[in-house]
């Protein structure tokens, strides 16, 4: 169903701000949950239950001096965090969060943009997002930054292959690259995490690596590389890199919910976006839980896991799914 362009524009503005808010409270949730899992309180000074902590952090970051390494390549050094941030935010444009509504006499779709290549678009934006790390590390002209960006690049490129292959089974079953079609198909038949359990597992691990979160946080392994590609960044520029990382986590969680857990469909009540939000919340919490409980991998373990375990499993899953889909239909 087509909607006027200005509705899409308004929706985009609202969604971007909602994601920023979700990001702010993901950091709060992470610090709170990690704290409880490590038998301490986490942030509890700014506001009730530390609820104002994200805003305190934001004000601190924005008010910091935007310092600049003498050797840094000026335009690229500034462009790198912007690239990361832009690709992270843009990817959410194609994720459906509701069935669509009739508001007054306008039809409002449950996603910002309904495109036939939604899934490829998300991966394309992800592959452009890698440049934020590479350019940032190179433009800083520092050994730690460069090593960090090399690691990031190798890790993200390796796991991107598994990530893309793991969703192939879902695409074959949904018979579309359009996320709205895939969600509707799951609502009409079966949630794809049941037949695509192998795909979900591969997607899950590849997703942790793609967002470089523990135990796959080698790009910024602080004991080895200080802080990886953003060693030379400070203030809100560093904040943008960090924001991009968390928003990628939220977007990929939302993508996992869309592909494997039927997006905004729920088992009991037709709550639409609330079901979607609840599932994304559970996913993000599981990520935080994993961060609290699994130690970081060694670099060779990371590469071996990606290429020798995840990739073959994803490939076999795709081939078997293809055979089954042809055989059944």
């Amino acid at each position, binding site marked *: 169903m087509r909607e006027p362009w200005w509705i899409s524009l308004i929706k985009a503005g609202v969604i971007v701000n909602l994601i920023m808010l979700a990001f702010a409270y993901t950091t709060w949730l992470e610090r709170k949950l990690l704290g409880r899992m490590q038998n301490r309180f986490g942030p509890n000074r700014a506001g009730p239950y530390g609820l104002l902590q994200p805003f305190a952090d934001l004000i601190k970051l924005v008010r910091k001096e935007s310092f600049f390494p003498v050797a840094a390549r000026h335009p690229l050094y500034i462009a790198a965090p912007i690239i990361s941030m832009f690709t992270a935010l843009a990817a959410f444009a194609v994720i459906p969060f509701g069935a669509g509504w009739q508001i007054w006499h306008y039809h409002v779709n449950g996603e910002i943009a309904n495109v*036939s290549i939604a899934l490829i678009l998300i991966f*394309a934006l992800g*592959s452009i997002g890698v440049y934020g790390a*590479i350019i940032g590390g190179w433009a800083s002209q520092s050994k730690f930054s460069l090593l960090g*960006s090399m690691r990031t690049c190798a890790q993200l490129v390796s796991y991107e292959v598994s990530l893309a292959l793991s969703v192939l089974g879902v695409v074959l079953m949904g018979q579309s690259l359009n996320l709205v079609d895939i969600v509707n198909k799951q609502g009409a038949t079966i949630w794809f995490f049941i037949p695509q359990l192998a795909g979900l597992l591969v997607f899950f691990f590849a997703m942790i690596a793609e967002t470089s979160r523990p135990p796959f946080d080698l790009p910024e392994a602080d004991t080895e590389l200080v802080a990886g590609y953003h060693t030379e960044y400070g203030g809100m520029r560093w904040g943008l890199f960090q924001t991009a990382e968390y928003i990628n986590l939220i977007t990929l969680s939302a993508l996992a919910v869309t592909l494997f857990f039927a997006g905004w469909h729920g088992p009991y009540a037709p709550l639409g976006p609330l079901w979607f939000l609840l599932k994304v919340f559970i996913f993000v919490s599981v990520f935080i839980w994993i961060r609290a409980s699994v130690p970081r991998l060694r670099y060779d373990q990371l590469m071996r896991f990606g290429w020798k375990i995840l990739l073959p499993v994803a490939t076999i899953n795709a081939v078997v799914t293809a055979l089954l889909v042809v055989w059944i239909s």
Partner: protein
Amino acid sequence: MIVASVGNVLVWAVWLGAAFACLGSAVAVVSFTNPFYSALALIGNLGSLAVLYLLLSSEFVAAAQVLVYAGAVMVMFLFVIAYIGPRTESPWTGGPTWQTIGAVLAAGAILVEIVVAIGLKAGGSLSHSHHVDGAFGTPSYIGRLFLTDHLLAFEITSIVLLVAAIGGVILGAHSRTTADEVPSL
């Protein structure tokens, strides 16, 4: 009608922007002395090509262009350039004169060929009035073409890529065994 003409202006504006970005970044690729900047300009070139594909309603080709070329291939370029480091101490100062003349002649010949080909083939069909249906350029449309009309070319390409992959593995494995045979100091 006003909305339609606004849309047309938008298409023209995007086309002009993408076309000039394409030319500008192509010139930038060959004029930068620092290979890192050249590679970035090449990414810009591939990106603006993708925008042009989008205007031709081939969204799948555009996304694949960004994903495969601007994303995966150019990451490798940048990776290697950043590893080796820019050779700023010996920038390339230009080849011999005959090379320059030859390049200009070849480029001119290609330009003439393009103009002639468009003039002969396109004729009167270069207008907004030509319509493509909604399925044009979608993944299913392209997939069907690949597996019916262009099956042979598609399969040959995949075999060439497979050969390249095997060659890469053999080259890598070969250099590793020879490196092992050399006694380390």
